[in-house]
């Protein structure tokens, strides 16, 4: 499509997006349609999976648009005539459809066309170039010699041979021709000649020719071709010694007479190759009568158009012939000479447009093309005037009225043809047997009907010796016809190819073409091959820019590639833009960013990866450049397993990478990632409460090494400790986001072991005197201490957290006692040295972390909270190890006892951390519940996805979404019909029914749905609008259900509560969740008697007012499954936040 200055774009999403459906939003990424339109009916659509793919295209279009604007291109304007050329190309290219398309991707194009041009087209262009070069070098491999040619034409008026042809055909000795071309007209005027092929006339006339030649010429001649069409006959005689040098002889005829078909008028043609020149002769007999001049013109054009010779079989198509004979003028070359025919049926295009599919040769595909015959053009004066001219011997005056010359001058016929000077009298019409013009009744003016012309070779127009006419005359001695024969003698240049030299020239051209191809490669040059990134820290993006320049002549398209499948660089590296196109001379900055996030940090910390990579900048159809990138990884406490962190005796930054690496190996060896057996779980359950019951609030004690280990990661303690001391009262703790600068500061302090600069962190960002500020914050600090102290006092007396998880170890008591003493001491220390606790760490003196500008205590606390969450999130193994998640979700969420049992089976360090975190959260809740709306549920929602982080999708059981089959199965069993109006009995009976409880609860849910249609459609999960008015109430009530039925583990809680919850809750659940989610809950829990109520309740919890949206379609089962998983995850955590004393 041509680009005009005026066109429009539109970008639309291919699929509609339901904003309430997250899965649909995700899908919608995959379908953008870019429309480019100039006019309504001329629109191009591009579809792309991602918007960034369209970027390169848009850049391109913009560039074109600018050009169009500059040049003032308009749709439909004359400035776009050029595109006809391409349209023809495209037509040809599309004919080669698939093959061409396949090739275009793999081949190395001469010029980097856009992908719309097939490689077939490119090959055409290259071949055409090679042919042009070959033609230009013709003299290098061609030798020329001259031959003498005799051309004669005679209309014999149907007469048999009655006189010798010697006067016509004989020449002087020195003029003796190498070749005779003799054309006759009206050799056979009998009617049956139209039907019966008959060579008698040919034989008769050839015999006469041979007799004449034998009699008059010293040379021996041999007939090499003859062609007859009724009255028209043409024969070619060649001097015997030349016979071996004639090839590819072909003859054809075209009838233009009656019905424009019959052979009473028309032409015969002979084409042959002499040495390496193609010669073509046409003997024509055009329409008669003085007034038929247009018809004659038309006959001429018809003959030009229809006279064609078959292509020799070793040429696959016409273009192959043209290129193999580049030095021979082709009809393409001649097309320009033929331009200007006024007749619509015959235009230069008739030749050229047919070219690509042509399988034959025209008369114009020749080095020499001579046209002879009775062309029947007359003079446009009366016979009296004509005869007067002739008697005055002023032939030139009469020639002014010659129709052929008039038509030629007007470009109506025989364009590009030349004729010798006419010095002979008109050749028609004579009284047969005499040399007198007829003075008959018809009053015909004597005319030059019989003519010999040649087509000026457009390639040799500059060569005066290419064709020279030596004689052009009529032979008046011949009297048997009413026409006089005409003869012309030519000296022609004939080519002989030197095959060795030709081959050398072809090789040279191939080399040149190769060189061009190589030079025409896009040449994209980056300004650097090595990029140093310096220090790389966790979550701190570092960007370097390289500039690439297109130093080549063509558009350079680039992309980054890699020997690794599916990715172009290491996962911590980002390249933008990673693909693109540059115009010649254009420069582009490519940003390379290194960002180590939680997905990549562990590999770097463990020494499995380093900040080293080699990027490969690949230019399409060009060279590749390697760009090495390197940086120094500064290890971070983020993204290390808890086990490793617990073994770090000093800040992680102070470790050399190989030390860390060794530590990782050690931890990995000692740690068996196997879930504890049930037996051990039970043990710990029984032993657990006794040993750990006193853990109820976070200890402000710095963790101590325990057998070279810390009980919890020091960093976890530090950050929680900060919040504990300075920010438990902050509104919306853990619900607001932190300040990125502060977060980074906290992270850096944790990594380096540098103390948090409290004077900065707790200062308000006001521009007042810093003293006042620090006073304020000090006062605040003290206030905190005072607040905190009472709640901590009991802690001091209680066993230390170091004992958590070791409770089942026999004889731990003594150690505990020791630890207790230590801890008591520590607390005092901490309180007295709030701002400069050293934790006994070896701290490199040189490490300095520049503190950020003060942003106030609240921001600092939120940032610390954020840092804590990110820290936990980055753990490669979440606090609750992933192998336990299934159990937590499937069993642990519904009763506290079950949840506790699971928790106690956690590995020591994990258990300690879990207890520490939950204790701290409980502490916050105990004191500040409701501050900005913090409560158990909110905390659980924030922390559950982090503490029980889903590391891989495999951890989410596929069974959870529930098979639709079970849904449809339970609904009829539950008896939807009978349940209507009787939800309560059903719910209670369901709980009694044990295993069948799931079905019953489900039935209750369906039955109590406020919309009748829902009960009918319930089986397939049909859902209607939720009862919004009651939802809030329901949620609250369900909370009660959950919280107070849960402890009643073994069905003690009974039907009352469940039943009460049933009707109200079920309506919400039924309406909202539909079939899928409910069946999953029920299916899993069906075995437990309490499961019924829980199953329902779980459903209903989704009815949280904030979550009410449009009904979720039944198809979204998998999304529902994940939601159920998430829900149960935080419900699990809730157990530990709600209880004052959970151990």
């Amino acid at each position, binding site marked *: 499509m041509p680009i005009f200055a005026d066109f429009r774009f539109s970008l639309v999403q291919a699929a509609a997006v339901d904003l309430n459906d997250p899965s649909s939003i995700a899908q919608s990424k995959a379908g953008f349609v870019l429309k480019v339109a100039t006019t309504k009916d001329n629109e191009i659509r591009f579809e792309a999976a991602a918007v960034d793919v369209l970027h390169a295209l848009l850049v391109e279009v913009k560039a074109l648009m600018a050009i169009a604007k500059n040049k003032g291109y308009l749709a439909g304007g004359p400035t776009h005539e050029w595109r006809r050329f391409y349209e023809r190309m495209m037509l040809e290219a599309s004919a080669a459809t698939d093959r061409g398309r*396949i090739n275009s991707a793999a081949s190395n194009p001469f010029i980097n066309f856009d992908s719309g041009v097939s490689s077939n087209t490119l090959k055409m262009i290259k071949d055409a170039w090679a042919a042009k070069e070959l033609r230009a070098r013709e003299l290098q491999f061609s030798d020329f010699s001259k031959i003498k040619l005799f051309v004669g034409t005679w209309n014999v008026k149907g007469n048999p041979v009655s006189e010798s042809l010697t006067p016509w055909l004989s020449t002087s000795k020195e003029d003796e021709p190498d070749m005779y071309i003799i054309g006759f007209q009206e050799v056979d005027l009998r009617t049956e000649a139209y039907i019966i092929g*008959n060579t008698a006339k040919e034989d008769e006339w050839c015999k006469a020719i041979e007799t004449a030649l034998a009699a008059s010429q010293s040379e021996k001649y041999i007939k090499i*071709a003859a062609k*007859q069409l009724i009255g028209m006959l043409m024969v070619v005689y060649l001097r015997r010694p030349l016979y071996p040098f004639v090839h590819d002889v072909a003859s054809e*005829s075209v009838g233009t007479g009656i019905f424009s078909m019959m052979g009473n008028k028309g032409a015969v043609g002979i084409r042959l190759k002499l040495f390496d020149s193609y010669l073509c002769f046409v003997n024509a007999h055009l329409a008669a009568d003085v007034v038929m001049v247009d018809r004659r013109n038309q006959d001429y054009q018809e003959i030009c158009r229809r006279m064609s010779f078959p292509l020799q079989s*070793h040429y696959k198509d016409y273009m192959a012939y043209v290129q*193999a004979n580049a030095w021979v003028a082709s009809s393409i070359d001649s097309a320009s000479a033929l331009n200007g025919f006024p007749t619509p049926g015959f235009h230069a295009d008739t030749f050229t447009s047919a070219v690509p599919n042509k399988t034959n040769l025209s008369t114009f595909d020749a080095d020499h093309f001579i046209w002879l015959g009775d062309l029947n053009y007359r003079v446009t004066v009366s016979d009296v005037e004509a005869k007067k001219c002739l008697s005055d011997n002023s032939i030139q005056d009469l020639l002014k009225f010659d129709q052929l010359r008039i038509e030629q001058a007007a470009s109506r016929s025989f364009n590009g043809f030349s004729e010798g000077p006419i010095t002979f009298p008109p050749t028609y019409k004579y009284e047969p047997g005499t040399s007198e013009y007829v003075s008959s009744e018809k009053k015909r003016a004597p005319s030059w009907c019989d003519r010999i012309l040649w087509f000026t070779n457009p390639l040799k127009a500059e060569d005066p010796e290419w064709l020279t006419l030596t004689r052009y005359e009529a032979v008046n001695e011949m009297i048997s016809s009413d026409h006089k024969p005409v003869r012309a003698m030519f000296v022609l240049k004939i080519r002989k190819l030197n095959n060795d030299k030709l081959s050398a020239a072809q090789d040279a051209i191939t080399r040149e073409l190769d060189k061009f*191809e190589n030079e025409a490669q896009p040449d994209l040059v980056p300004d650097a091959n090595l990029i140093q990134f310096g220090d790389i820290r966790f979550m701190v993006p570092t960007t370097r820019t390289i500039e690439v320049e297109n130093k080549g002549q063509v558009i350079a398209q680039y992309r980054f590639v890699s020997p690794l499948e599916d990715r172009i660089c290491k996962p911590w590296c980002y390249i933008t833009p990673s693909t693109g196109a540059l115009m010649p001379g254009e420069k582009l900055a490519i940003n390379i960013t290194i960002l180590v996030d939680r997905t990549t940090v562990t590999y770097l910390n463990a020494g499995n990866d380093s900040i080293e990579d080699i990027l490969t900048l690949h230019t399409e159809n060009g060279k*590749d450049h390697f760009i090495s990138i390197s940086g120094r990884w500064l290890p971070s406490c983020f993204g290390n397993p808890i086990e490793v962190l617990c073994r770090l005796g000093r800040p992680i930054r102070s470790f050399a990478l190989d030390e860390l690496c060794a530590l990782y190996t050690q931890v990995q060896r000692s740690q068996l990632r196997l879930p504890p057996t049930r037996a051990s779980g039970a043990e710990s359950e029984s032993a657990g409460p006794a040993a750990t019951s006193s853990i109820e609030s976070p200890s402000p004690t710095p963790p101590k090494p325990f057998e070279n280990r810390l009980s919890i990661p020091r960093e976890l303690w530090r950050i929680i400790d900060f919040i504990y001391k300075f920010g438990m009262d902050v509104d919306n703790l853990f619900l607001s986001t932190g300040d990125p600068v502060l977060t980074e500061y906290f992270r850096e302090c944790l990594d380096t072991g540098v103390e948090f600069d409290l004077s900065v962190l707790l200062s308000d960002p006001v521009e007042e005197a810093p003293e006042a500020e620090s006073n304020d914050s000090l006062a605040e600090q003290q206030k905190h201490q005072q607040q905190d102290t009472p709640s901590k006092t009991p802690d001091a007396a209680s066993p230390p957290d170091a004992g958590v998880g070791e409770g089942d170890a026999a004889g731990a008591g003594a150690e505990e006692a020791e630890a207790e003493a230590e801890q008591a001491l520590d607390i005092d220390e901490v309180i007295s040295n709030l701002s400069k606790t050293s934790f006994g760490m070896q701290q490199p003196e040189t490490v300095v972390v520049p503190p950020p500008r003060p942003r106030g205590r609240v921001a600092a606390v939120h940032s610390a909270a954020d840092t804590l969450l990110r820290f936990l999130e980055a753990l490669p193994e979440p606090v609750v190890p992933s192998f336990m998640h299934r159990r937590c979700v499937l069993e642990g969420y519904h009763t506290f006892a079950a949840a506790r049992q699971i928790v106690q089976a956690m590995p020591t360090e994990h258990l300690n951390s879990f207890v520490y975190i939950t204790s701290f959260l409980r502490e916050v809740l105990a004191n500040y519940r409701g501050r900005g709306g913090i409560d158990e549920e909110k905390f659980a929602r924030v922390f559950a996805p982090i503490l029980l982080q889903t590391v891989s999708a495999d951890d989410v059981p596929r069974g959870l979404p529930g098979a639709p089959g079970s849904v449809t199965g339970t609904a009829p069993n539950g008896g939807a019909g009978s349940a209507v109006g009787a939800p309560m009995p059903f719910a209670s009976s369901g709980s009694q029914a044990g295993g069948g409880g799931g079905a019953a609860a489900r039935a209750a849910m369906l039955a109590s749905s406020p919309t009748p249609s829902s009960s009918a459609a319930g089986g397939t999960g049909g859902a209607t609008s939720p009862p919004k008015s009651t939802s809030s109430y329901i949620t609250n009530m369900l909370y009660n259900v959950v919280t107070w039925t849960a402890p009643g583990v073994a069905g003690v809680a009974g039907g009352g509560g469940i039943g009460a919850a049933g009707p109200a809750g079920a309506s919400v659940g039924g309406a909202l969740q539909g079939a899928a989610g409910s069946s999953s809950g029920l299916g899993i829990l069906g075995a437990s008697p309490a499961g019924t109520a829980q199953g329902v309740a779980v459903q209903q919890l989704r009815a949280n007012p904030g979550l009410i949206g449009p009904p979720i379609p039944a198809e979204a089962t998998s999304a529902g499954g994940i939601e159920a998983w998430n829900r149960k995850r935080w419900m699990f955590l809730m157990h530990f936040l709600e209880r004052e004393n959970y151990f």
Partner: protein
Amino acid sequence: MSAARSASPAGAASSSSAAAAAAAAAAQANLKPIQVKLVLLGEAAVGKSSLVLRFVNNEFQENKEPTIGAAFLTQKCKLDDKIIKFEIWDTAGQERFHSLAPMYYRNAQAAVVAYDLTKPASLEKAKAWVKELQRQANPNIVIALVGNKLDLASTARGVSTEEAQAYANESGLLFLEASAKTGEFVMDIFTEIAKKIPLDTLAAARQRTGLTSGGGAGGASSSGRVDLNQNPANSQGADGNCAC
């Protein structure tokens, strides 16, 4: 309808030898070149790029800067009545780029492993490349061991012809000593390779599938490539369509 006949005694002669020559000339102009992907490997500074430059442009540059990346050049070569189009990947020799080499020798039908005949260590590196190619490249790859800098042979030769030849023989490699500087025997490297490559198999495979081999390094799109030489016995049709 035509009452004429073509009396052309010479027409019968048009299948004579002269006509055959014309046909051959025509064929050359229209012959589809057989594409051969060739990769150059070898230690840094042995003259890989110079060999290519000599072969392709018949030029020589003193003190060429090292290749950081992989240059791509094409050159057609005539062998008997066939045209071979070499698609040459000239790779970086520096050791740190070693890991990227498979991107270039994968799918290659030919490899030139170059060493510097004044530096015995470079032959050892060449041997390592040969081993890697024999282990990981296309099993039918034609490997030519080339000792470059023949112009220095008389003054600074460090590897004897016999030693290299013996190694080449035992490993089944083509072997030549050449000089990119003088151009001596450079063309021979490529014509020898062309002779040894099973061109008919390549051409036939291409005709069957309508595919061309090679293309850019484009490692990322390797799935779209078809390795014509991987299993010459098998039909290539299975992964017929190039999706690049």
